[in-house]
């Protein structure tokens, strides 16, 4: 995909390759300080501290998980307490049917809390990452595919509010990009 064939309207963003993890790390710090929002890095292996270099905040996945857990806890406790104590008091082995019956409901409550937390984790993560999807514009780039082999890749999307076609390209070169490719939708 040659650069000239991509119109401004059709531009997804830039894919830039860096020489090594260190260059990419420092470039990420500069991107962060430059105030870019819609960008990401892709490396063949995890780079310690990259989240700090990129200025990533805390993921809000934990909030979704907490929501799932609380939902599971409440549903289980309510369903059991309502049906077994309030609606139709079920007396088992002369055990009380009041607040002190609650220990009997713990196993189910525990399980449902875990189950819905687990679901919230998996589906919440998929939701945040907008997966599954059929395709992604980045798959149009030959350069990008190197990230799973030996490439240290940075991607900046054209919809970033700070993105300017010429200026951003110059900026990428300035911070040490060795190869830059335009990617179309």
């Amino acid at each position, binding site marked *: 995909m040659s650069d000239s064939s991509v119109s401004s309207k059709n531009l997804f963003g830039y894919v830039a390759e860096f020489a090594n993890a260190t260059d990419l*790390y420092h470039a990420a710090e500069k991107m962060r300080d430059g105030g870019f929002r819609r960008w990401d890095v892709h490396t063949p292996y995890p780079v*310690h*501290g990259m989240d700090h270099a990129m200025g990533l905040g805390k993921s809000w996945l*934990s909030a979704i998980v907490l929501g799932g857990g609380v939902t599971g806890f409440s549903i289980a406790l309510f369903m059991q307490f309502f049906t077994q104590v309030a609606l139709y008091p079920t007396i088992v082995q002369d055990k009380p049917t009041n607040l002190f019956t609650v*220990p009997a409901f*713990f196993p189910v409550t525990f399980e449902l809390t875990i189950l819905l937390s687990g679901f919230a984790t998996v589906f919440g993560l998929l939701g945040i990452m907008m997966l599954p999807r059929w395709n992604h514009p980045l798959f149009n780039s030959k350069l990008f595919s190197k990230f799973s082999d030996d490439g240290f890749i940075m991607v900046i999307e054209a919809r970033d509010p700070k993105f300017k076609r010429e200026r951003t390209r110059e900026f990428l070169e300035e911070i040490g990009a060795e190869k830059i490719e335009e990617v179309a939708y």
Partner: protein
Amino acid sequence: MAGLKDGDDFKDGESFKNPLILKGVFGLVGFGGLALFVALNFLLPEKRGEMSYSWLFALVFFLSLGVGGVFWTLLHHATNSGWGTVIRRLMENLGSVIPFMLLLAVPFLIPNGYQDDLWEWFPKREAALEKAEVAAEKGVSQYVTEKQAEIAGAEAAVASAEAELAAIESPSAGHRAHFDRKIESLKTKLAKLQEQDLSEAAVHETLVDKNFKKEEALLHVKKGYLNEGFWYVRFFFYLIVLSGIALALRHWSIKLDKSGDPGLFLWMRRASCGFLPFFATAWTFLVFDWLMALDYTWFSTMWGVYLFAGAALNSMGLLVIIVTLLRHFGYLKNIVTLEHYHLMGKLMLAFVIFWAYIAFSQFFLIWYANITEETKFYLTRNTEFWNLYTITLLVVGHFFVPFAILLLQKVKKLPLVLSGVAVWNLVMHVFDIYWIIIPERGPSLTAAGPAKDMLMVMPGAWLFDVLAFVSVAGIFGFCLLWRLGSASLFPCRDPRLDESLNVVN
């Protein structure tokens, strides 16, 4: 990455200058309290029973913290961990307090003292055996006469069967076979009776056993485990295993500080894997003998792991507090980072959950099955004062509060808040151990009198509990400070030091 540290910069270690005033205060409170406690035992002999429970409570609490320290050291080696090398020496120091704590358990060894007050099976077994002895003494001659009569009867039966066969003139083959079988079986019976050892000593032994079973059936069933001889053997087993492991690991680790020989590091890993089963056995059976046997009729298969969970959680909490204090006074500044706090906080959260899981499982199975011999433990602890205590302190205080706080990621990276949670947990652990031991005191000490006088809580006895706790706390603090000052604060030439210094999670 910013802040990369090189283990070589720390190879000389960091020594801890003992704050003499603090050490003195600990020593004074500890040994002064101990002297006062011993004096009270002689001044108020009628209160000795109450004081024995106080002593056990204080001792088990501090012993469990030391045991937790050994557990983390063993786990660290056995799993070949890298994150905690910088705090491993503190774990080892915590563990090295165990021998001193076990020395304080010497009163339990004296017969007819604390032993009888705490563990009713000692006096009950003794009394039952004495009674059985007296009954056996009387019964020997009667038993021998009875047995001899039985033998004579059996001999007569054989003779009469033989005579019957001889009286038949010409028996058929079937007839003969019938008599042969009959005579054969009668002869076997006779041989069995004759085999019996009717010497006086043997008869005596049989009769004692029989009468013991009649007196105390439960103690008779458990006689293979609950007997004085084996109890003493086990006591020394705990002493040797727990102290030996703690001291050996610390010794090798300090040797590694000096020599820097990686072979020692590998050796510690191998040794830890071998130590783990012994360590687990010793602690499990120690709490069986000291705590579960407070009521010899009761048993729980969750007991060992329940006390282990509390020990592991709270020694990690104590480590957090110690690290925070050391950092406050300028030690370990560039060594322990917020990453280590985060990791320790995560382990605390895990063990808060683990403790609750075990505690609830133990309660739940017993409550649900509702079998008489198992429910006794919880019935005692759900009566009067203890009911509210259990629900508010153990259910809410020991689980829900620290769980909710530790769930937040931020909290685990705030040393002061995390230390606050650790202090809270330690207080709850005090209540947990108190709840295990003290409810047995009232019923045990007053059970001999009339039923209407039985007390669930001994009035005023809490004063002894406080005194015992403060004394053992003082001795614990004194020993810990002394151990802290006797070697580098972290294993300075450990091969994994670099990894631990730069840990990120």
